[in-house]
């Protein structure tokens, strides 16, 4: 009973957002009254007025490229960290762990100067590439690969498979559940990220959806249109979340990280 109330509180703001987004202009609306009729007009207005298609494209590039590159680079390194002995391994790993502890705000200014010196300000390169160093992905994957039974690796070595074949045919398929979970996290993190797009982009064309939403928040007066925009930005990540929430739940509850 109480839990139902808590759940309603969690979902309430979403409901308010959607109802207001569907209210016709000028009609009495929440919190004073429910709208008398519903309309998609606000969505049409917002989609026509703002460059939503371009913002969605930017956000998709930001999120999807990040997912692919982070998962590939992190799993390659994690395989070597988990299965090889080489000089400097612990130092490298320690370095990666310690960058995990640095707040993004602390490196914001030097990172932007670096991106500027590469000529990447206000480009997709500048948006995506500096955010691909994901310590959490490396650590989680290394932990997982280390826990895999050693016999698997011995067997493929006897068969004469090299590291690349082992990585591609053994490590990646076995890591699939962890990779799926990390993919959801990396996707959501980038889709919802605000700070980096805020500082690295200047032009309207390069905005991501969150950034576009925040600029509309400070310029657009019609609340129904604003809520329509908010709904439009949230929909994709809520859909991804709903489809994959089982993965997310098992990852979040799997002790530690």
């Amino acid at each position, binding site marked *: 009973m109480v839990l139902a109330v808590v759940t309603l509180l969690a979902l309430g703001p979403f409901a308010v957002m959607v109802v207001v987004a569907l209210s016709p202009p000028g009609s009495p609306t929440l919190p004073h009254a429910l709208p008398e009729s519903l309309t998609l007009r606000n969505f049409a207005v917002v989609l026509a007025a703002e460059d939503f298609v371009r913002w969605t494209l930017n956000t998709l590039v930001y999120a999807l490229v990040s997912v692919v590159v982070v998962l590939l680079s992190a799993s390659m390194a994690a*395989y070597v960290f988990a299965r090889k002995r080489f000089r400097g391994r612990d130092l490298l790993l320690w370095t990666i762990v310690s960058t995990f502890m640095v707040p993004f705000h602390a490196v914001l200014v030097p990172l932007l100067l670096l991106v500027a010196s590469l000529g990447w300000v206000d480009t997709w390169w500048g948006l995506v590439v500096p955010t691909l160093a994901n310590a959490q992905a490396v650590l989680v994957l290394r932990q997982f690969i280390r826990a895999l039974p050693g016999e698997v690796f011995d067997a493929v070595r006897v068969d004469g498979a090299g590291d690349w074949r082992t990585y591609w045919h053994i490590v990646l398929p076995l890591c699939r559940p962890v990779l799926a979970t990390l993919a959801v996290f990396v996707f959501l993190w980038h889709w919802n990220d605000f700070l980096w797009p805020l500082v690295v982009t200047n032009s309207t064309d390069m905005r991501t959806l969150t950034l576009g939403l925040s600029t509309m928040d400070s310029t657009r007066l019609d609340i129904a249109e604003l809520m329509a925009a908010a709904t439009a930005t949230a929909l994709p990540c809520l859909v991804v979340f709903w489809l994959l929430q089982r993965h997310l739940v098992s990852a979040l509850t799997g002790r530690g990280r």
Partner: protein
Amino acid sequence: MRGAVTTLLFLLPVLVLFGLFRVVPVLGAAGLSLTDHDAGGGWTFVGLANYRDLAASRTFTASLRTTLGYVALCVPLTVLVALGTAVLLDRVTWARGWFRAALLAPYATSPVLAAVVWRWLFEPLGVLSHPSLVLPALAVVSVWKGSGYAVLVLFAGLQDVPSDCLDAARVDGATAWQRVWHVLLPFLRPVLFFVVVVETIGAFQVFDTVFVLTEGGPMRASQVLAYVVYEYGFRLFDLGHAAAAGVVLWAVVLLVALTQRRVFGGDP
């Protein structure tokens, strides 16, 4: 020899990404915080002058207090709400997956979205224009947005509490409160600490909601540390002070993390 080359090739993408976009900026931040950057693009080494300026600046010391105030509101509130919800979720037997997913939904959306929606919910209350109510309001947004995660972690922790201990306590006539206090909490301690630390580190870095909802106002009442870093760097273009403020934020987060290590005595 070939093995070493292969190892290096496997590491190469991560080495380049971390070296260029994490290690270099971290060293750069430390270096930058010791310099003065003038409009002409020149750099002058000024030693610790930036840090002394920050220590002497009313705005900066006030932002430290504001951040602490926010953390002191946000973390206990999140943990209490999450703990209560997790206990309730543990007792429910039907549609548990649905409840869990619904509770986690705000966690999957952006802080900007949360801020935009909550600004409108707060409007009739006027809390955002009141200096002493603005931090509680920001904490409420954070609880809404973030406690779903804490609920899940605590819920998982509850699954590890042996049910015979609870049954034994019930047979012995312990009240619900006594069972929570004397049986559940001791078992939950490690998970609870984990949640507290994660929430604390996150709360120290609060930025997005402040940026969208208050821009540090009213009357600087919500000017938190991360916002000060942004303001120095991207409104005043005072890069030296921005870097120094960033390093202070880093030091604070590191301090919290090290305290956690002592408490857990293990994994970072």
